[in-house]
């Protein structure tokens, strides 16, 4: 009897398109729910995790002195030969880099230079918006590397941002460090 009732209710469901209305109501509820898209360059921006390998930077010690000892190990291990290091002896008798060029267009962001460095000097940081209009501007020198952004301390979050078109290429700037729950509109059932 129970199975017969089930059969009858299934037939009634077929006749009145129960499954079709179920599907339609599901998509309707999605149609009027909030979107989960991250409005990347205009309103929001992703701050990558600490492990992220982005634009390189050169570490400095507490006196602001660059930590690099110009051993050229990074240039040796680099699989795509994109680094050029020329050492010199500074006034204190330390070996320091005179030239430290990285060709960002050739770099494959493997992080081997970071592993090879004995002085903890070269690192791959959080910066990822460095598109350029020609490849020669992608060769980054020593001073620019020292000034480049460090690794993200509290990475892995979405912050508010705005699009800055004043430069030669538009970039997305963080406006305030306010965090935003990027799971907020994602359904987890």
């Amino acid at each position, binding site marked *: 009897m129970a199975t017969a009732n089930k059969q009858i209710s299934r037939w009634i469901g077929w006749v009145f398109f129960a499954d*079709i209305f179920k*599907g*339609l109501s*599901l*998509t*309707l509820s*999605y*149609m*009027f*729910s*909030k*979107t*989960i*898209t991250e*409005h990347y360059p205009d309103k929001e921006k992703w701050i990558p995790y600490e492990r992220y390998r982005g634009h390189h930077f050169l570490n400095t010690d507490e006196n602001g002195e660059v930590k690099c000892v110009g051993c050229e190990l990074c240039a040796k291990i680099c699989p795509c030969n994109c680094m050029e290091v020329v050492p010199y002896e500074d006034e204190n008798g330390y070996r320091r880099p005179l030239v430290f060029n990285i060709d960002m267009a050739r770099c494959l962001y493997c992080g081997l230079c970071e592993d090879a460095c004995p002085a903890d000097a070269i690192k791959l940081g959080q910066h990822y918006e460095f598109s350029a209009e020609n490849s020669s501007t992608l060769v980054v020198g020593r001073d620019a590397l020292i000034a480049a952004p460090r690794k993200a301390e509290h990475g892995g979050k979405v912050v508010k941002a705005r699009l800055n078109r004043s430069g030669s290429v538009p970039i997305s700037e963080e406006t305030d460090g306010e965090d935003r729950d990027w799971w907020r*509109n994602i359904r987890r059932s």
Partner: protein
Amino acid sequence: MDELIVVLVMFLKLAVVVAVLLLLPLPLTWLERKIAAHIQQRPGPMRVGWHGLLQPFADGIKLLSKEDHIPDDADRFLFTLAPMITLVATFAVFVAIPFGEPITIYGTEITLYLTDMNVALMYVLAIAGLDVFGVIIGGWASNSKYAVLGALRTCAQLISYEIPMGFAVVGVVMLAQSMSLVAIVEAQSGLWNIVYQPIGFVVFFIAGLAEAQRIPFDLPEAEGDLGAGYHTEYSGMRFSFFMISEYLVVVLLAALNVVLFFGGWNPLFLPLPPLLWFVLKVSFFVWLFMWFRFTFPRYRYDQLMSIGWKVLLPLSLANILITGMILA
């Protein structure tokens, strides 16, 4: 003088209808992309204009500037003819569609339809069937396997949905005792036909989805298995002719659903102008079509045939019988 005004009004109405129909696909493509996006929890086009409102214009400019490519092995004459047949047939159907009650401007009564034929429904079904010829010829002339397969599917689909579609409207004609669309709308000034003809509406709606070649019955252009179906080889303006006619068929089917089953411009509760009521109802149906598209998967080829022949045809015949018995 009076004859001149009549001719002038006629030409004016013609110009307005053609202009509206040519411009209508622009907002519809935007709407379709937005609805698709929101069902999938995306914002859709956002960057060109406010919330991507100018995106259709950008797309139009892109299509205009595309290379007009005709494949080497294609039948050049038929290849160029096919999009025109589709577009002309779709435009010609709208001649018979009434949009609202007559309005009076400066003492001149203007009827909101181009012609009130006494066989309007017949004409609509016949000419709407014509635009399939463009699809078939286009697929054949492309000389490409995907296009031919798409065209073949169109043929098979045409036979299985046109017959139930024709039978489904017979009930409406029996109720209104006329094939004129204006008379059909006027006959619904009390209760709408959806109350008397629920089966007819369901059959007509499903057959209409197949006529418009939309998901779940978009077999002729099934992207997954046929590239792009019959318009695989088309590019630029010729492609956009097919797209325009596709969107216009959606509007046409929505308008037919409204005129035949949802009381045309008869108001429901609010005493809004008849033309506005008509536009509101048609936009609801257009939205419904798009909602369907992004809810359901595509039916398999043989499933469409079995729906058409084993379900829709008996249902529409039973609908005629029941209507006849109740009327008699």
